[in-house]
């Protein structure tokens, strides 16, 4: 009977492809929109992910994210270093500044001061140059997305910038995950960053901590809080704070959420309509089969086989489409580092399965419960 079910489905090629296309399109819509949404939201944590070696971030109790931070007195560093279980602790500065380019344009940038000795605080990988270039005078390293923004058609290496009226020379490009706002980021040594960023006495934004036992980061962060009175978050907690901040403080997640919901509804409508139309087209055949002697259970199984075939084909194409989409845009800085979290294909699979099951069941309900004589009238 399964063979018959499959032939019923594929017999009319036009309808079959219509159905597969409908499901592929909805899967693409749902998967792709959710992927962009999640990746965009995760940009709120890019500052944390870019410094993968820090197990714990220590900050002023009012600080919230890598970009919303209140500076601490420099004595905080020694306090943290004194806490048992801290393997190392380094200063980390993050501040806003403005840059005047050669053409005279003014551009807002983020300045990140990394530890002079260890260079902890730099992204793991470089696109061009090595981290050592920071030991040369006035050196800064720019992030790759910033490069495309500030120097769209040229290499930034060797370019001179006026950074808050101080001279800076770009000597390397870091491979970094862009921030939510894709701000240009300039990395430099902590001591030099203090010169670039004028201002108040307190300029230590964070103390980055390596734990003796990284598995105990949570316990260590609690101990640091107890002993220093500062706020300490593990890497994962702080990343989540960054995402949460985006969700709470921008309208974009809401707007995007609406888009996702619309994509979902459109998907449901397409899949639901095409599949229930298909079942309806075949309702007389199903009724005749039931009259001849095919039990409801077997008819249900036939519909499940049909749903399974179009579902899996369409879903597969939709996911492939999403992968192709992400892949073809991966060179675009806006989509840099985008990936498809494994939960998303599962969500769209569940959605497709649910829609097919529901519409198949609704469309078949009459056949399954009414007197089969009806189809012979």
């Amino acid at each position, binding site marked *: 009977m399964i063979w018959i079910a499959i032939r019923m489905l594929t017999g009319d090629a036009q309808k079959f492809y219509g159905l597969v296309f409908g499901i592929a399109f909805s899967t693409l819509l749902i998967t792709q929109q959710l992927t962009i949404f999640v990746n965009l939201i995760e940009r709120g944590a890019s500052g944390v992910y870019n410094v993968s070696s820090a197990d714990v971030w220590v900050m002023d109790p009012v600080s919230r994210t890598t970009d919303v931070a209140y500076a601490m007195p420099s004595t905080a560093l020694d306090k943290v270093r004194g806490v048992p279980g801290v393997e190392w602790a380094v200063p980390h500065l993050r501040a806003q500044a403005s840059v005047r380019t050669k053409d005279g344009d003014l551009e807002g940038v983020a300045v990140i001061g990394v530890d002079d000795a260890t260079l902890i605080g730099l992204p793991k990988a470089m696109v061009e140059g090595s981290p050592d270039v920071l030991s040369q005078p006035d050196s800064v390293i720019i992030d790759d997305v910033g490069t495309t923004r500030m120097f769209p058609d040229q290499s930034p290496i060797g370019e001179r910038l006026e950074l808050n009226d101080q001279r800076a020379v770009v000597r390397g490009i870091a491979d970094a995950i862009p921030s939510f706002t894709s701000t240009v980021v300039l990395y430099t040594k902590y001591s030099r960053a203090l010169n670039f960023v004028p201002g108040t006495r307190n300029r230590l934004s964070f103390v980055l901590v390596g734990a003796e036992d990284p598995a105990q980061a949570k316990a260590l962060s609690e101990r640091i809080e107890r002993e220093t009175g500062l706020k300490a978050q593990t890497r994962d907690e702080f990343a989540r704070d960054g995402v949460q901040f985006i969700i709470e403080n921008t309208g974009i997640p809401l707007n995007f959420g609406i888009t996702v919901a619309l994509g979902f509804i459109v998907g449901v409508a397409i899949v639901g309509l095409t599949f229930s139309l298909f079942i309806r087209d075949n309702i007389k055949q199903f009724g005749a089969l039931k009259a001849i002697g095919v039990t*409801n259970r077997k008819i249900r199984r036939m519909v499940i086989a049909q749903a399974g075939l179009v579902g899996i084909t369409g879903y597969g194409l939709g996911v492939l489409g999403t992968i192709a989409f992400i892949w073809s845009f991966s060179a675009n800085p806006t989509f840099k580092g985008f990936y498809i979290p494994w939960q998303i294909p599962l969500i769209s699979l569940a959605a497709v399965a649910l829609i097919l099951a529901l519409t198949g069941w609704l469309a078949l309900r009459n056949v399954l419960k009414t007197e089969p004589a009806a189809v012979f009238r």
Partner: protein
Amino acid sequence: MGRMLDTSAIGGCKPDSAICTRGVTRDFTAGQQTITVLHGIDLDIRAGEMTFLVGESGSGKTTLISIMCGILWPTLGEVKVFGTDIYDLDDTALVEFRLNNIGFIFQQYNLIPSIDAASNAAVPLIAQGMDRHEARERAVEMMAKLNIRDQADKLPSQLSGGQQQRVAIARALVHEPRLVVCDEPTAALDAASGRRVMDLLREVAVAEDRACIIVTHDNRVFDLADRILMLEDGKIIHDGSEMPEDH
């Protein structure tokens, strides 16, 4: 043995009847109105006979044979097919009973458009769990008996109305059901083809332990009947081996 006789005698059914209906009544509700289409039909259909059911349009013929073959529930009354009270069965058991015992040909053939004629005719065997290729071979044999062997590989849409009907007949007979029910099999056919279909049904469907009921208007084939029942306004008004004189 004695017990079997006892049970089959319940409700006054004759022990040798293939189909037995007692007090079969069927109402249809259309909007506010309820019409009674069958009024307490009591019938015993014997095996080994070709029984014709005749009557004017709207007299309830299709309704009655639908109830006899287990696809339409009577409002009142009971129906026994080879001793089984079919409307006492649960839904699944009734479906399986139909699959193993009943073949029917209605005016709507409801063939599956995307599988070829022989596969359509093989559907009951496939539903019984027979291997698809074996089932199809058996169906081709049945089609050969019906003179449409050469149409086996065609899709239903490539067949004429009469050929489609014979595919439906092959589908009704392929699993050798004990009860065959046929609604106006000759209505769409010319005299010669109609005659041939009737001859075929006689040949294939009438046997010692089988029953065959045919609804027809076609007076050209009345001579083939062993028994003719006449329905008028939902009541049996004639039961004999010939048509009544005034018709």
